[in-house]
């Protein structure tokens, strides 16, 4: 598939066409910040954003969703959301997070609710133009992305470079007025991507990202967990804004006839009091320090062990901004462990 070039005016026209025909969600301003939302006008699209308040995972795993409706002693019916949609403006680190959750939801129990939404999505990613205040994607090697998307856009000044990676993407892009990208255009794109691979580094990891799982081997009883958790609200903000967190809680609600009802799932989070309650009410990670540790172990050890090495932190920096007591930053914790453990 040839790489295309599309002028900014042509892109606006193309997006305008799209929003008039399809269900489109895209990045827009929200006060002085940005977020994904239903896109009704191409003028509202802000591909120059720094970071969105919420990651795009909500389009695949909504905060609350109905899994099935049931009637006691009669059976149940699964509920799926299978309306196609286009998602515009996903940054590379968020795309990598989606790829990870795809992998986890395919393994073991195949999550049909998630996968139905996922397969109905057409994802248009865009390379980062403005770095957010806490992004550290370069450190996590997630500043650029190679797969998972349908189309990748890169802003090269007066135009975008547009590369379709799937047939869906190709079909969509063919509706736009484009020209073939020249060698010069491609060089510009490469420079932008190379720069992003270095410059999205508001926090510096002292070791290589690949060393993290090994680092955690010896850190289980390190004092940092207690120290950080001492000022933790257990407010779950760090989980809620994280593109790689996907814990949920399932709950039934029965209607007044006491027979029919629905089963819903809602986002949960490993930082919340009450998370990891097992039958009998015994809370096995009762202590906040244990849960604080679990969050960072999950990111840099449990998930990589499951999906072949990739760390479940893509360096978006959202948890750093969202944590009021300023303790959630994974880089600070990993660096602290590195100083103490590796230099001994």
């Amino acid at each position, binding site marked *: 598939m040839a790489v295309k070039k599309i002028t900014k005016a042509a892109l606006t026209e193309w997006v305008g066409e799209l929003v008039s025909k399809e269900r489109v969600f895209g990045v827009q301003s929200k006060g002085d910040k940005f977020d994904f939302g239903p896109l009704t006008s191409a003028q509202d699209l802000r591909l120059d954003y720094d970071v969105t308040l919420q990651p795009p995972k909500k389009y695949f795993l909504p905060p609350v969703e109905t899994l099935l409706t049931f009637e006691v002693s009669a059976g149940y019916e699964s509920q799926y959301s299978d309306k196609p949609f286009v998602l515009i403006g996903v940054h590379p680190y968020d795309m990598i997070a989606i790829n990870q959750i795809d992998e986890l939801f395919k393994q073991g129990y195949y999550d049909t609710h998630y996968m139905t939404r996922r397969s109905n999505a057409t994802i248009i990613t865009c390379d980062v133009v403005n770095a957010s205040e806490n992004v550290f994607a370069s450190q996590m090697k997630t500043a650029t992305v190679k797969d998972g998307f349908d189309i990748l856009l890169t802003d090269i000044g007066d135009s975008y470079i547009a590369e379709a990676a799937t047939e869906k993407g190709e079909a969509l892009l063919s509706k736009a007025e484009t020209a073939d990208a020249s060698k010069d255009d491609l060089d510009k794109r490469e420079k932008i991507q190379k720069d992003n691979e270095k410059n999205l580094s508001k926090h510096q990891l002292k070791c290589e990202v690949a060393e993290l799982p090994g680092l955690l081997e010896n850190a289980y009883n390190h004092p940092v967990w207690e120290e950080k958790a001492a000022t933790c*609200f*257990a407010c779950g*903000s760090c989980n809620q804004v994280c593109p790689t967190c996907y814990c949920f809680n399932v709950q039934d609600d029965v209607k*007044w006839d006491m027979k029919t009802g629905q089963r819903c799932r809602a986002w949960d*989070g490993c930082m919340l*009091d009450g998370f990891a309650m097992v039958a009998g009410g015994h809370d096995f990670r009762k202590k906040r320090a244990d849960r604080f540790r679990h969050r960072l172990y999950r990111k840099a050890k449990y998930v990589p062990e499951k999906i072949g090495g990739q760390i479940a932190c893509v360096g978006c920096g959202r948890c750093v901004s969202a944590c*009021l*007591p300023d303790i959630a930053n994974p880089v600070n914790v990993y660096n602290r462990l590195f100083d103490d453990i590796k230099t001994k």
Partner: protein
Amino acid sequence: MSKPRIAIFDFACCEGCQLQIVNLEEELLDLIGAVDVVEWREAMSEQSHEYDIAIVEGSITRPEDEDRVEIIRSRAKILIALGACATIGGVNKLKNNFDLDDVKECVYGDDAKMPHLDTAMTKAVDEVVEVDYKVHGCPIDRKEFTYIVRCLLLGKKPEIPEWPVCVECKAKGNPCLWEYGQVCLGPIIRAGCGARCPSSGFRCFGCRGYVDEPNVNAAKDVIEKYGLSIEDLKGKMILFGSTQGPTNE
């Protein structure tokens, strides 16, 4: 199975939470169809001494109210505290911050010494008798109330959030109000309202009461980070948090 008998009682409050029940609209018919309401001063004239579930609205502010709620407790199998006045003492607890004689004089002037106007420190219902379930909020959330009643009818334990308002606030994609200079109590207040206030741009003032283990040290750190004083925080905690939990620490 015979329908459970429900009685609704009010103590010191604005009756706004009962009003929420009256305003259930079509669900009110479902509710009344599923239970047998035997006493409810706001909606009917009958009284009864026989009920399975007592719903108690309002806080306990006088010695004779303590006796009354104890009798209610002894008759009911299940006692539900309805609304912030009942669950945490609510705004009524504000008076606990002052000398009681001053409070009386301020409210009743020269009549303050009349015996029927006697008053005591405000208590939440569970400071006097055992409470089985709490419907939090000022006013209560109608959906949560009917959910709790349905759970009781099914003999199932309702799941009431143990986590703070921030969870729901973040799930809604709200920017944090602290960044805009508001002292929001979201991180230490129990969720369940759908982050009603921050979603409309107002700080959470704590009407659902504290979470089970509010981290006050963390709150103090955050106050410092944003260049505010502990008094700023306390000033915000006092409306719904007087003489409970960490407010007076």
